């Protein structure tokens, strides 16, 4: 499925087209489920969040056109934010390390690699320009849903230090990424 198709489907979902929602689900739910699993590490909870995500997509599809980024990013952000909300509400150590280890290696397929090649190469270069622990913190926040508190605990620094640290890393990243 091409990006344009996902965009068209979201447009039809905004018009309350139920068949379009099911097509969108078929095309995108595996990626969104992967996002939930990565953050939550728990299958049952990830299924709940996936359901919430598509309910929200149905409700908010009409707001999509206002955004300035790709339709997949919009969908992933909805699932990611909901998964992080669940993670924060849980406030217990992740129980899903075994599951995470069972997931296949994280390698993009060739098609994705070609599509996002330039943007990813740029981001990769700019992350490489940060100190490795700082780059790792950015990745953990994005991919694993780590909070400032999680990072502060991991690196054994005060919360405000961690906050300052990540903000500076993001500022540096922005200087590198430009735009």
């Amino acid at each position: 499925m091409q990006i344009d198709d996902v965009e068209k489907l979201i447009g039809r979902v905004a018009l309350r087209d139920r068949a379009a929602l099911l097509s969108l689900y078929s095309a995108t739910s595996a990626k969104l489920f992967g996002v939930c699993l990565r953050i939550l590490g728990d299958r049952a909870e990830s299924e709940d969040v996936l359901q919430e995500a598509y309910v929200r997509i149905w409700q908010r599809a009409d707001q999509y056109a206002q955004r300035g980024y790709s339709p997949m990013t919009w969908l992933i952000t909805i699932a990611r934010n909901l998964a992080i909300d669940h993670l924060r509400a849980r406030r217990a150590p992740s129980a899903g390390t075994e599951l995470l280890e069972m997931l296949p290696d994280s390698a993009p397929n060739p098609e994705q690699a070609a599509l996002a090649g330039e943007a990813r190469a740029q981001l990769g270069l700019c992350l490489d320009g940060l100190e490795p622990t700082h780059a790792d913190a950015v990745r953990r926040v994005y991919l694993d849903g780590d909070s400032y508190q999680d990072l502060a605990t991991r690196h054994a620094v005060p919360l405000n230090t961690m906050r300052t640290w990540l903000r500076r890393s993001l500022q540096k990243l922005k200087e590198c990424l430009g735009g």
Partner: protein
Amino acid sequence: MSDTDHQIANDDDSAAEYALHLMAPAERAAFEQRLTVEPALAAKVDYWHAKLAPLADEIVPVAPPLAVQKRIEAALFGASKPRLVWWRWLAGGLVAAALGIAVLQPNLFSPAAPIYIAELADEGRSLVVVASLNAASGALVVTRQSGVVAAGRDQELWIILPNADAPISLGVLASAQTEILLPDELRGNLIDVVLAISDEPLGGSPTGAPTGAILVAGPLTLG
């Protein structure tokens, strides 16, 4: 500044933290209020969404169990079935009434005037809304001629197509006069179409179907 100094967040920091979902709920809600009125701030958030998106490439898709799709269908469409009753009835009744009126309209078949109108009013005319649609351009102008929006609520406009599964939202009526561009898909068939306004929470129906009372409704007829 030493690393332990508490750094006050500027808008760039806040936009990145919002995009990364690092904010506490109260902070996030306050920031979202600003986003609705500050396009420059929203652009900063969009920047981070776009730039960080490649990180998601490394997430491996995992097919969810089939049961999840069934649960989503039940959550979204299963519960809405009882709601079909009011608007089916509404559509049938109003369209029948409109046909009676239509016979008296001398310019009904004038091809030069593809303007459709609808008057939506309650019995006591405490709320009167007039809608005018240019069928060629799809411009729908909705004017509230009398009545007010209840405090802390919104009025949402719906279009009900003949034989449709459900009313389709045309959006919240944000001011006394709202201009809406009718999507191409809806312009084709404007016969037997009803417009309705429902009372909804701020921002409109959270479910995609009307959740509050239907305040007024009226058929769309050739003007």
